[in-house]
């Protein structure tokens, strides 16, 4: 007879439990919140960190990849200048939110307040038994922001949620509600430094009511020793549009999950993802996208640049419910593999139960086009610059789609700088 034995705890697992034991009395929350935290932690204790045997973590064996669970952040960190001049910055420094002002028509409160009042108890739940990020963040979430944009309000200023971390362990939560026909552009920016090991989790929960139009940009630029686990969930009401940008340009171990529920007729979801991977980092972007009702559309384009010994993963699952006739869902994952030692795994998955839909996915892996390189060099552009131009062009096509020119310029500059630093 076979006995199922649990593998011994890894150092990282033990450290997580220890840090919970250490923090448990200080974490904000009423009795309901505390109960929710205990449940989530015991789920982690029960199953351990996910391994490659868990399907959704197959390409990111967290149990083996998570190295070091640091304690409270001890380094000095301070908010940085916003990506775009004139943006409203809502800082979270070393895990603690401030008390910033909000633009007209936007109601803002620190997430810590919602924990303290118990309002957040219902938000501290995992999506399923394999939702390690939900479990971890729910158990440890300390602060962040909760905000809502009034119906019909067009927020002119760009809002920058700025999480700054220098080592240590940080768990943020952002909750955003966009009222009917509201519109806003939000940058969710994760800043780190090159110091000690950091561990961060961050969950953003978006709710777009009917006709809301939101551009949300996740800009992950943690330090080269940092481990970052991000998750964004979104529900789109009728005729709502979410344009989501994910730009990964940092971190040692990164997983960004995106879970979108296209729930209202006429809704549209866009994902544009740029993964800039170098060194011996591991970066995983995992998408689950559900089309639940008829007449909805989505388009995902993922572009990856792989240097050094970096490894990247994209898992994209699109589910089209039986009722969701006339769905149009397009997904493409293109990788520019610039190193023999780098690798990228792409796993598209379509689950289609409706019969009158257009769904497509494609994955390509390419190297720099020899003809392109020769053409640029024949104009006097050195090989190094020509390569940088071409790599930049490969990802720039996605950035160029953004409506705000300042934003396009800022992101282009950021990408160029990354290529200069790592190319």
């Amino acid at each position: 007879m076979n006995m199922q034995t649990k593998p011994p705890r890894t150092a990282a697992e033990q450290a997580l439990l220890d840090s919970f034991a250490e923090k448990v009395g200080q974490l904000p929350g009423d009795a309901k919140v505390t109960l929710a935290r205990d449940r989530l932690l015991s789920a982690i204790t029960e199953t351990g960190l996910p391994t490659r045997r868990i399907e959704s973590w197959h390409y990111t064996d967290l149990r083996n990849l998570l190295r070091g669970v640091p304690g409270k952040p001890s380094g000095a960190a301070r908010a940085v200048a916003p990506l775009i001049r004139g943006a409203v910055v809502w800082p979270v420094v070393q895990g603690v939110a401030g008390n910033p002002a909000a633009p007209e028509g936007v109601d803002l409160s620190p997430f810590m307040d919602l924990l303290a009042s118990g309002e957040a108890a219902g938000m501290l739940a995992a999506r399923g038994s394999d939702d390690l990020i939900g479990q971890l963040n729910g158990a440890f979430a300390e602060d962040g922001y909760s905000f809502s944009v009034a119906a019909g309000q067009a927020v002119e200023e760009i809002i920058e949620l700025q999480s700054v971390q220098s080592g240590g362990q940080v768990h943020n939560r952002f909750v955003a509600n966009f009222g009917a026909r509201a519109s806003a552009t939000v940058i969710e920016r994760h800043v780190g430094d090159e110091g000690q090991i950091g561990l961060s989790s961050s969950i953003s929960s978006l709710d777009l009511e009917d006709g809301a139009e939101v551009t949300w940009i996740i800009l992950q630029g943690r330090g080269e020793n940092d481990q970052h686990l991000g998750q964004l969930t979104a529900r789109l009401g009728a005729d709502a549009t979410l344009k989501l940008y994910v730009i990964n340009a940092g971190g040692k171990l990164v997983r960004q999950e995106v879970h979108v529920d296209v729930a209202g007729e006429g809704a549209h979801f866009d994902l544009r993802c740029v993964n800039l991977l170098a060194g011996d980092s591991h970066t995983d972007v995992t998408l689950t996208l559900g089309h639940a009702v008829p007449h909805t559309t989505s388009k995902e384009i993922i572009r990856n640049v792989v240097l050094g010994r970096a490894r990247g993963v994209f898992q994209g699952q699109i589910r089209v419910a039986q009722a969701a006739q006339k769905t149009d869902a397009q997904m493409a994952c293109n990788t520019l593999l610039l190193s023999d030692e780098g690798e990228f795994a792409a796993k598209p998955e379509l689950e289609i139960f409706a019969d009158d839909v257009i769904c497509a996915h494609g994955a390509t892996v390419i190297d720099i086009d020899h003809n392109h390189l020769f053409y640029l060099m024949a104009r006097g552009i050195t090989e190094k610059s020509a390569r940088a131009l071409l790599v930049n062009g490969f990802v720039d096509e996605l950035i160029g789609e953004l409506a705000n020119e300042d934003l396009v310029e800022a992101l282009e500059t950021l990408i160029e700088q990354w290529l200069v630093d790592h190319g």
Partner: protein
Amino acid sequence: MLEIKNLHARIADDGTEIIRGLNLTVKAGEVAAIMGPNGSGKSTLSYILAGRDDYEVTEGDILYNGESILGLDPSERAAKGIFLAFQYPVEIPGVATMQFLKVAMNEQRKARGEDELKTPDFIRLVKEAAASLQIDPAMLKRPLNVGFSGGEKKRAEILQMKLLAPKLCVLDETDSGLDIDALKIVSDGVNALRAPDRAIIVITHYQRLLEHIVPDSVHVLYQGQVIKSGDKDLALDLEANGYAQIIEAAA
């Protein structure tokens, strides 16, 4: 300015010899036409001059202003003033035309030890040059050559040539794919660049282009060699009688 001596070159991949003992001299201020039947090695010669690494030179030399350029990569040759107008300019999605022009101009200036262009000066130069070639400014906002018609691509090549002001211009079948009006605009653009310190090599199949860009010398390329050289009347002779007679005489 340009001296090609007993040049032998082959395709690097499979060793097929394309250029077999080619000799050619082009002086500063000269416009030289290179004609020849399909497969005679005309385009290959232009690629070898520009430094494309798909070809390897096995014998002979290419001297530019008295110095061998065989050891230079394409960008170094360009910075020294060699320019190839491509027969098929490549489309590069994601690279904006203006950005490309600016990088190219500044990299060449940098290689020559000159200061970078200031943005307003750069924009003024491009606008003036574009207007003279009747290039719609909207075209310059697109990614490089993407969605350009055949004629627009050729005009864009001449625009680049004008802006980079090279000393040795190699035009590879610039007339292909051009209608009469576009041919006139492109030829005028090239003629405006004729200068005592600049040489232009025009590679073409047809006499037609040479009515607009009148050459000082005409060279017939066949099986990787120049088999006959003459003045502009040689092109007229070829137009009237074809290549067969010359090929026979050279055999």
